[in-house]
């Protein structure tokens, strides 16, 4: 019983981490039609900023708060300078963002060297429920993920900004005709997606420690999750992330980890092949 509970918690917390990472990726993919290969590096940057504040002796949570804003601002600048040119061609966008990611990743690698740098958990210790111990920080991640998810949903579905974003997604020329500045909306959306990645990086760095390929590790999983969930809506990628995260955390409990690792991807690709629109089809929130 206790084992099953711990397993369930592990699966849930890993699922939450994947959801957190995919949120930004999914918003950019759904709202802008761009598969952002640099997203993993935005995660990495968020982690790096958190590490920097920790190394300077500042409180860790300060870095975690700062990370999304810094990364979001960077995303806004990059969108205005570079990404903007790629909207017409999705493949070129992939290659361009890949190049961007390469630059960011190798810069960070140069800064931190080939090391694995650890950042302590801001909320240490464990929560004890009877005989069972679960990591307090992982629990916090789950809670924050739920909050961020809810916040994003409300932002996109209930606010006028969300309405503009959705209008721009659905019909850019009509949105422009209605007086919405679509370039600004695209910029803001990209910055928002980047900020979410920065937040994800900041939150997961105590769990995975900081190394240059941190973002790359999650990038492909994120892409697969977005495709499984369905591009075009906000809920789709989140649902996909839930499925992929849960599967990749749950399968190793029942079979050899190597097989499980590969099986998740194979299953996902087969699923997408036969259901290209993903779990949740349709545009909107």
């Amino acid at each position, binding site marked *: 019983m206790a084992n099953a509970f711990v397993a369930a918690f592990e699966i849930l917390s890993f699922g939450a981490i994947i959801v957190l990472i995919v949120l930004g990726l999914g918003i950019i993919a759904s709202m802008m039609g761009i*598969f952002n290969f640099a997203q993993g590096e935005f995660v990495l940057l968020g982690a790096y900023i958190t590490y920097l504040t920790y190394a300077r002796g500042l409180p860790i949570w300060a870095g975690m708060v700062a990370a999304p804003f810094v990364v979001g601002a960077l995303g806004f600048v990059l969108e205005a300078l*570079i990404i903007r*040119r790629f909207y017409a061609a*999705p*493949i*070129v966008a*992939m*290659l*361009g963002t*890949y*190049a*961007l*990611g*390469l*630059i960011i*990743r*190798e*810069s960070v*690698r*140069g800064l931190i060297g080939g090391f694995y740098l650890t950042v302590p958990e801001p909320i240490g210790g464990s929560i004890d429920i009877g005989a069972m111990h679960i990591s307090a920080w992982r629990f916090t991640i789950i809670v924050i993920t739920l909050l961020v998810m809810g916040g994003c949903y409300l932002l996109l579905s209930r606010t006028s900004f969300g309405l503009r974003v959705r209008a721009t997604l659905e019909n850019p020329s009509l949105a422009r005709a209605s007086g919405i500045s679509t370039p600004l909306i695209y910029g803001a959306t990209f910055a928002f997606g980047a900020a979410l990645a920065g937040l994800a990086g900041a939150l997961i760095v105590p769990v995975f420690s900081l190394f240059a390929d941190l973002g*790359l590790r999650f990038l*492909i999983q994120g*892409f*697969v999750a977005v*495709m499984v969930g369905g591009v075009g809506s906000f809920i789709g990628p989140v649902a996909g992330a839930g499925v992929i995260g849960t599967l990749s955390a749950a399968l190793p409990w029942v079979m050899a*980890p*190597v097989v499980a*690792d*590969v099986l998740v*991807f*194979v299953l*996902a*690709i087969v699923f*997408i*092949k036969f259901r*290209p629109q993903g779990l949740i089809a349709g545009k909107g929130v």
Partner: protein
Amino acid sequence: MPKSMSVVREAIAGDEADDAMAERAAAVQVAAGRNVLPIVEGVVLVAALLAPLVLQDYLTVFATRVIILALFALSFDLVWGYAGIMSFGQALFFGSAGYGVALLARDLDITNIFLVLPAGTIIGLTFALLLGGFLLLGRHPSSVIFVSLGTLTGSYAADRLARGWYYLGGQNGIPSIAPMTLGGYEFSEGPAFYYLVLGILVVVYLLCRFLVRSQFGLALAGLRENEQRIAFFGYKAQHLKAIIFTIGGAIAGLAGSLYAFHEGFVWPNMVGVVVSTQVVLYVLFGGSGTLIGAVIGAVIVEGVSFWLSDNYRDIWPIILGVLLLLVILFRPLGLISFVLGERERVGSFGAKPNENKKPGKEKRNAAP
């Protein structure tokens, strides 16, 4: 009157500028008409033939590796540059063939060149046929995004599998593969291996050149430019894509088996995302859609990275990223487009109408 004079003068000045422009355009056109492509190809071939004579031994070894990678780049260029299929997992075929021949050499002691190279080619071909068939064929045409992410995922999954599978050596891969043999002769690193690889590259290059200049190649170029239109012409676009994908996989397999024997070991990165993206870099730099562009790109990227890696190992990937970004933004056709006109790239090579009208051939290619 004076007013009109000045207008005329201005017009003349403007004309001069226009003339300069026109002259430049004409020069480009003449260059295009003169066919720069064979000249470039000839120069590259001569340079490649003479390279071992001027290079030191360790550089010849390096040059051999570059030639093998150029062969690999060729396979990606066929798929992306001609048919417009973004294969982010080309290393899957390269690496699996490498692993395949490594296992042949390790477990069955088969190192005969006439067995291992075809074996590697067939492994690459089979994997490409399976993956390409799955991703590209089917009732609904697959989106470009799906194919690119599907190949990427395939390559990543293969990487993870190779890392975790003890039989394949896990993280360390398979070290110290026996050298390739021809009767009693062992191909070790050096000029002999270099010329062997160069010979293979030239043969494959000529075959590819023939292929892309056939009706089939024209249809492929059409696919890249506008898939829907090609489909409306009655071509089976998906079949064309699957065929070229498989051919690309076979060439990648050939390159992978050569690479495994040349380096003497295979390791998980060889099937993974790292090598997959590397080959994309070669082709983008050199210029996609021209076979020679892929070769030149491989030589330039590997050459510069070799040259810089002594002193600037850390910043080289950053420079590479910046260069790549600049190429994508400002020279989408690659470095080759500095000397080569658009006409030579796209496939106006038919040109002479009486040559192109071979109905039988057309028919065969139309419904493969």
